[in-house]
């Protein structure tokens, strides 16, 4: 079947052009990236660098103009339950309770009622929403909504989680808390994670590897390995090694030279 030794996700020569009224907008150009199984990769870059487009291509919600994305060796064509997606705007179904939201994907997959209940229960507990299982989304705070969305994505048991600025709309304190919870969850339920953000601290804190993108055209500008140990606690966040990496990524994001295209990981 598929080559288990190969990368979990492979993006090869991806280009995406949007035709606007009077000109073409190159959202992505020459994007090549391999992501290993159970790797946590963050993608950071200025607005317009195509990071969300890249995620949509991986999710199968958009098709690349040229090139291809592979998941476990198979070319991506359309969305699938092997890739869970978490959106910045939560995208919970407002007419369903937390429990029904989490069960949605299982119901679509035809999972029996008792098993659905059990699995939803497990993931609702994992994100700490047991008390709110029968609440409607309108009763939840932003952070709780996003935790519910994470439980919903986990429930269908995807091997990949694609997260598009999931904590972008939250306040700084809630963000830090959710970052730690996400890493905690990830360490217990290992998945390959592609996490889009515009926050340099967040990108470094979470990742095995930070991919820095540049705009006009959207492309990979730099790749930074983060050799910090997990679990990442507050000590890690305040360590000089973290600061050093953070400064490096910061420089890469905010002082980009046009035309510099780094393809491979550097250190």
């Amino acid at each position, binding site marked *: 079947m598929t080559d288990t030794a190969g990368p979990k996700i492979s993006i090869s020569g991806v280009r995406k052009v949007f035709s606007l009224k009077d000109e073409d907008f190159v959202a992505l150009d020459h994007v090549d990236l391999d992501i290993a199984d159970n790797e946590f990769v963050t993608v950071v870059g200025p607005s317009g660098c195509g990071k969300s487009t890249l995620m949509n291509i991986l999710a199968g919600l958009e098709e690349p103009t040229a090139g291809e994305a592979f998941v476990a060796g198979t070319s991506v064509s359309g*969305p699938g*339950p092997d890739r869970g*997606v978490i*959106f910045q705007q939560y*995208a919970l179904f407002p007419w369903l309770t937390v429990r029904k939201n989490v069960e949605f*994907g299982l119901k*679509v997959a035809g999972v029996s009622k008792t098993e659905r209940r059990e699995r939803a229960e497990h993931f609702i507990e994992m994100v700490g929403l047991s008390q709110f299982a029968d609440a409607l*989304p*309108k009763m939840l705070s932003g952070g709780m909504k996003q935790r519910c969305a994470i439980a919903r994505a986990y429930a*269908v048991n995807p091997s990949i989680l694609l997260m598009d600025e999931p904590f972008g709309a939250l306040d700084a304190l809630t963000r830090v808390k959710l970052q730690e919870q996400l890493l905690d969850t990830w360490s217990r339920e290992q998945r390959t994670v592609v996490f889009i953000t515009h926050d340099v601290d967040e990108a470094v804190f979470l990742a095995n590897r930070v991919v820095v993108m540049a705009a006009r055209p959207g492309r990979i500008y730099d790749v930074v390995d983060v050799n910090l140990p997990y679990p990442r606690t507050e000590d890690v966040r305040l360590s000089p090694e973290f600061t050093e990496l953070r400064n490096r990524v910061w420089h890469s994001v905010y002082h980009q030279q046009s035309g510099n295209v780094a393809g491979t990981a550097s250190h």
Partner: protein
Amino acid sequence: MSKRTRMYLYNAISIVAGIGIWWLLALSGLQLPTPPEVVEAAARMWSAGIIQEDVLASLQRVLIGFILGSAAAIPVGFLMGWYSIARGLFEPWIQFFRTIPPLALLPLVLVLLGIGEVPKVSVIFLAAFLACVISTFQGVVSVDRTLINAARVLGAKDGTIFARVVVPASTPFILVGMRVGLGSAWATLVAAELLAAQAGLGFRMQQAQIYYDLPTIFVSIVIIGVLGLVMDRLLLFAESRLTGWQERR
């Protein structure tokens, strides 16, 4: 006193004051019947069975027209929102008939369909249909793309997305359309009965006008208003039950 009780109290004061002003105007020489005269007329009409007969005739027409109109509007609105071909085919006709007050079609309908129940019900049908079809269509096209994408990435195919995302997401729009449609249907009905009917609240007023019977006209006006209000409140209640999940801003 809670905010709500205070609101009800103000409402009650307003109603009593309104009736008081009406009474004063009637006594001061304006050609109006006094409230007791109207109550008396209502009692007389009730014991003669006239009110029951009129209400039954009017409600029957409006409900048949409204239910058929909404039942036709919802699928058509969904088709228009979901398939651009349906939109292209239906839209010119809907936009055209929307600019014509349904009542203006009554002369045509009377000539074509005679003076039975069918012409009146058809005009009411049209009134309800037009109001509901447009808001259903609006509801379908304004469904949040992110919700559709969220369903897709969870493995849902088109049919499931339609039933489990598009339909619930458009329900608030449909109910608003039904409320507007009911108001429009009720208004059209009464006017249609003024022109061509043998029973009904509008017909009764028309008759009373000939005999200069002001109390009967007042009775009919009050019943029309109260019934309209009751039907609107029933739909509002259904709306709050069905769309209570909405985040109110």
